[in-house]
Structure formats: structure tokens, C-alpha cells
């Protein structure tokens, strides 16, 4: 039953991404709200459903977007994998881990998109992509990282309440 909370959260994040976030440009780059929320969710210690969230979010974004579905699915799963690795190694500094995952996750999804679209025959100059999309996207995602982490931490505490110590 706890996993059902993923449905409204994922839907809301994808709707916000399509309706609001994707209209706010820095050069040609935009923030990736589902990525940041997934990273923040996967970093919470008590959460055990981040893989399902990643797959569901990737499929939903793949449905809404014109980009091949493999990009968001594998991209978001890679973000969760990164978060699992960082959570075990940088567990004392969650914000540092959050920033690192956001940075690396944005780069991974950007490179994956570039590779898949070029393979599909879309002419994408690498320097344009890195300068106009990836770097502005990294900056915008970093700005979203702290509020997203705070929101998802509160959500995780609400969904997985810690047992009271007597």
C-alpha cells in the first residue's frame, strides 16, 4: 500500500515537468524535475521502492515525450543505481550525495539522449548539446536539488514512519 503514494507523486512530477518546468529555459536547457525527485527519493534510507519509481517514471515520460522510451527508463534507473551507491558511501552528507547524483544523473541522461537520438538519425551537434542543453540543465537541476530533497525526505518520513523508541 505504501507504494501507492508513487502514483500521485510521479504523475504530479511529470505533469509539472511538461506544463511548467519545460517552459522555463536557461539558454536551451531545462530542469528535469522527475530526475531530481527520483534522486532525492532513492537517497532516503528507509525507501525500498526507488527502482519501481524509476521504471514507472521512465515509462510515463517516454509516453509523454517524443524521445525513445529507452532514454528515460534506463536514465532514471541509472540515477537510482547511482543514488544507492552514494547512499552507502556518503551517508553522512546527504546533500553532497544529492548534488553529486544530480550532476552525474543529468550528464548520464544527456549523453544517453544524445547517443540514442544520433543513432536514430537526428543531427545533433555535440558542442551545441553540451553548451546549450547539458550545462544549463545541470545548473537548473542543482537549483531544484535542495527543495526536492527536503520535500522527498518529509514524504519518506510520512510514508515510512520510524518506530517510537521507549
Amino acid at each position: 500500500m505504501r507504494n501507492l503514494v508513487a502514483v500521485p507523486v510521479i504523475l504530479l512530477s511529470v505533469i509539472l515537468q511538461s506544463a511548467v518546468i519545460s517552459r522555463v529555459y536557461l539558454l536551451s536547457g531545462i530542469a528535469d524535475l522527475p530526475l531530481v525527485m527520483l534522486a532525492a527519493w532513492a537517497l532516503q534510507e528507509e525507501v525500498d521502492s526507488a527502482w519501481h519509481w524509476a521504471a514507472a517514471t521512465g515509462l510515463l515520460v517516454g509516453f509523454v515525450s517524443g524521445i525513445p522510451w529507452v532514454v528515460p527508463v534506463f536514465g532514471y534507473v541509472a540515477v537510482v543505481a547511482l543514488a544507492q551507491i552514494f547512499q552507502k558511501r556518503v551517508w553522512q552528507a546527504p546533500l553532497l550525495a544529492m548534488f553529486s547524483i544530480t550532476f552525474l544523473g543529468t550528464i548520464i541522461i544527456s549523453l544517453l539522449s544524445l547517443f540514442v537520438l544520433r543513432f536514430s538519425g537526428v543531427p545533433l551537434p555535440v558542442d551545441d548539446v553540451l553548451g546549450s542543453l547539458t550545462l544549463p540543465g545541470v545548473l537548473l537541476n542543482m537549483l531544484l536539488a535542495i527543495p526536492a530533497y527536503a520535500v522527498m525526505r518529509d514524504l519518506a518520513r510520512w510514508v515510512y514512519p520510524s518506530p517510537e523508541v521507549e
Partner: protein
Amino acid sequence: MALALGGYFSSASNVFTVSLVNLQTWFSARFVAIQDFFTSPRDIASLRQRNAELEGELAELQAQVIQLQQEVGETQILQALVDFSRANPENTYRAAAVIGRDPSPFLHYVIINRGSNDGILRGMPVVTNQGLIGRVDAVIADAARVQLITDPASSVNVRLQNAETEASLVGSVTGDLTLELIPQDINIQPGDLVLTSGLGGGYPPDLIIGQVVNVRSRDFDLFQQATVQPVVDFNRLEIVLVIVNFKPVDISPLIPSP
């Protein structure tokens, strides 16, 4: 009495009345001061209440003004679209609102709130009153995804009105539009109008796209290139028109495979 009527007491009565008036003034001033002291808190409370009521009314009126300004803006857009459809009676249009953009920054798509339930089909061209914006790429029951002409995968066959030549208009990841495949012997100038040519069957002919802003011509290139300024502001798309009576032609089976 006789002395008083004779005016012999006038100085004494003046002194009396002046003293009386001064005394009354003194009492009156003190009374008013005391009355103000006791009544002013009630006035402040009532003024505060009145102020809050007026502030509430002001906020309500400001909200109404914003709503009315928004409605006026929408009405102006719709009026322009109606004028456009009247000026182009050969086409049948279906108006749709833009409700979202592609979540990926790599692609330039918008999502509209009309789908197959409204007769929208894949490949139908989408315009505004200013010019072409793209074509329908995917459709579900109540929504559709439109590929903009600024998308890096988009390619539109166009003609230059002044130069009487045809070319290919391609988008880019930054949203810039570039004209390609312009023969070297064609003289094109900044300001030349770019229209759809209708070749290839993907778009109807003579839809306005934009103007040439600069030309890149090098002697060792096979073709010239030109940058095009679109007439449509793709960042401010709100309401669009889908040309529903246009049936795109798929010529891919006719293209010989290598």
C-alpha cells in the same frame, strides 16, 4: 433696567459675556478632548475594519482585472485566429490549446488538448494566425503531440518567394531555423519571405514560415545556407489551429532504398 437700556452697563456686560464665552470655550475644548479620548479607539477599530473590508474588495477587484485582462488576451488571439481562418477558407481548422511541452530539452514538441476524438490525425499541419508551427506527430483520444518546425528532426520543403527557388528548412537543438540545399547560383537576400512549397506532401503550400535574416555562401560549398527568423514566437504558443482537411502523403515507399 432703565440704566441697562440706556447703555450704561454695556462695558460690564461685555466683560461678562467675554468671560462666559471663554469659559464655555474652555469647557467645550476639554469636553471634546475627553470625548475624543473615549470615542477614538472605537473609531480606530471601525476604521481598521473598514480598511480590511476595502482591502478585501481591492484584492477581489484586482483579481477580476487580471482575469479580464487574460480573457481580453485570449479573445484577441481567438479573433486573430478567426480572421486567419476567414482569410484562408480553403482549409478547415480545429482550434486547440497548448497544454504542455516535451519533457526532454532535446526535442521541440508541444502537447495540445485535441485528439482523435476531435478528428485530429497524425501528420496534420498546425498553424497560428502568423504562420506554420509544425505537424501532429502522435495522437491519443483527447490530446496530441505536435512536432515543431524548430525540432532538430524536422525538415520542411520550402520556397523563397522573391528568389523563386526551393530549399529545405531544418530545425536545430537550439531552436534556430536554417535553410539548406539552396543552389549557389541563386541570389537570396535578407528579408526574403520563406513559404512552404508543398513538395513531398507533408505540408500544404504557401504557409508562411519566416524571413531570411542572413546568408552564408562559400565558394567551396555545393549549396548556400541561410538563417531564418520565424514569424511565430515558439516560446509563447497558447492557441493553435490544426488543419483537419489536409491529408499528408507518405512518399517514403517511392524513395529508392540504397
